[in-house]
């Protein structure tokens, strides 16, 4: 099990209602269903992956988070989870507002574009960075709105949401992010994990 999933599970309280946005093949949903709450739903854009989820006995709606979250009333779920997909949306601002509206709490994870390897990649090679967590070329990447941990923290001020928990993941180890260590976490964190509320 990915460390990221364990961290997400640790944040979520037992028996909460959960919506996994962009639930992919349902791996996280399965994990949460077994360990946290059976009241869990997913939304996924790929037909194939929706089928995979159904085969796992998960309740998933085929849909696009950019358009299809609006069907959910305010505060529909205790937690809304968005794992490493914010950067793939045409309009991440709208998506985040929708997540905050639909969920009482929102958990977002972002691949950190501020990681030193990414920075070095661009600095030395002079080409768009390709790393283990960002394996695509610039012309075929689904990640059209990459951001850094620092960007996301700033984003909270721009949009006006509260960050209740911010964690950086590095070599499967987690650490808290705060104002004093933001520079370092932004340099060495591979993944940012945030618990936010409107």
């Amino acid at each position: 099990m990915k460390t990221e999933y364990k961290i997400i599970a640790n944040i979520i309280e037992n028996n909460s209602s959960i919506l996994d946005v962009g639930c992919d093949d349902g791996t996280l949903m399965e994990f949460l269903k077994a360990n946290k709450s059976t009241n869990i739903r997913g939304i996924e854009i790929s037909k194939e992956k929706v089928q995979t989820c159904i085969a796992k006995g998960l309740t998933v709606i085929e849909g696009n988070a950019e358009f299809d979250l609006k069907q959910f009333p305010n505060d529909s779920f205790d937690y809304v989870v968005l794992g490493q997909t914010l950067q793939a949306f045409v309009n991440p601002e709208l998506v985040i507002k929708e997540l905050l509206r639909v969920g009482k709490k929102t958990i977002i994870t972002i691949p950190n574009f501020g990681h030193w390897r990414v920075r070095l990649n661009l600095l030395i090679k002079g080409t768009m960075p390709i790393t283990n967590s960002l394996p695509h070329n610039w012309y075929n990447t689904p990640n059209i709105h990459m951001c850094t941990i620092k960007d996301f923290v700033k984003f909270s001020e721009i949009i006006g949401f509260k960050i209740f928990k911010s964690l950086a993941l590095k070599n499967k180890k987690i650490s808290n992010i705060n104002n004093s260590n933001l520079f370092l976490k932004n340099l060495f964190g591979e993944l940012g994990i945030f618990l936010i509320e409107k």
Partner: protein
Amino acid sequence: MNTKANLKTLIIDKPLKLDCGQTISNFPLAYETFGTLNANKDNAILVCHALTGDQFVTGINPITKKDGWWTYAVGPNKSIDTNKYFVICANVLGGCMGSFGPSHENPKTKKMYGTDFPVITINDIVNAQVNLLDFFGIDKLFSVVGGSMGGMQVLQFVSNFPDKARTAIPIACTSNHSAQNIAFNELGRQAITADHNWLDGNYNSKNTVPDKGLAVARMAAHITYLSKKGLQEKFGRKLQERDDLKFGFDADFQIESYLRYQGSVFVDRFDANSYLYITRAMDYFDLVKQFNGNLSNAFKNTKTKFFVISFTSDWLYPTQENKEIVIALNAINANVGFVEIESDKGHDSFLLDVPDFLKAIKNFLDKSYAENYNEN
């Protein structure tokens, strides 16, 4: 049409008040079952048939001697596995395969009801069917499943009886019949009533059948069940057993011949008045209006787990209309899954061998069933 003496029939003595205001009682509901009801009586699936379907879901239909209409999906080891589940299907009220319908004799006149038969609705159909649950002693269905008009029955059933189904699969359907849907049905009805053999619905008494009108109705409807792409790929402009155009009005093209064939076989198995009544029931279906403009209210407090399925090339009951059901369910936090299946076979996809569709149903049912067992 008199080979129907041996059909399984439940006589419903409990009076049923119809939406039109009339009350019927002691009426027959023809049904068929497949598989075995287990001791806990928790493995029953009610399958609801579409406009021209009947209770013979799978296996050989004893009347037509052809495969049942959902043989791809229902049977031993199939999506709806009859080794595991007990499948019940009733011929709809107003139908012509043994259930109370316009071809039955009116005890008052000793003649066929014809157009004296009361206009029935999807609500009436469902309220008649639920008697089968009592008959089998089933407290709660494991699932209620159906496509097209069958899907409408699924929605109505769950709305009317919120505690009677653990899961529900409405397929390729709608919560209210669109103007286009009504228009096509009206075309079919006009074709039937314009046939001079229809005789205001009294054709039986004169030993005749409005077969031309009924065939045209079927032909028109059949086009709506297919997609443009599917038709083009299957028939294109291919000619029917001839090298060139004949400059006449015989079936030059394969598509013409195909439609004529579809029309001709249909009249052998279907009653024209039933066609009028059942299409009317579909047209009147409007669950949104029934709940004052808010479809969510139809499913208030539902505990049922829904799985809504649509098809990409279905233009008769397009994905958007199916999605409206999903949206209404999400608005009340119901447990609902949804998938749009890729298929170029049009509305008919749900009746055909579409592997992604068949797989989705099987997985949903089997996983849900396993889950229920764990919980108990």
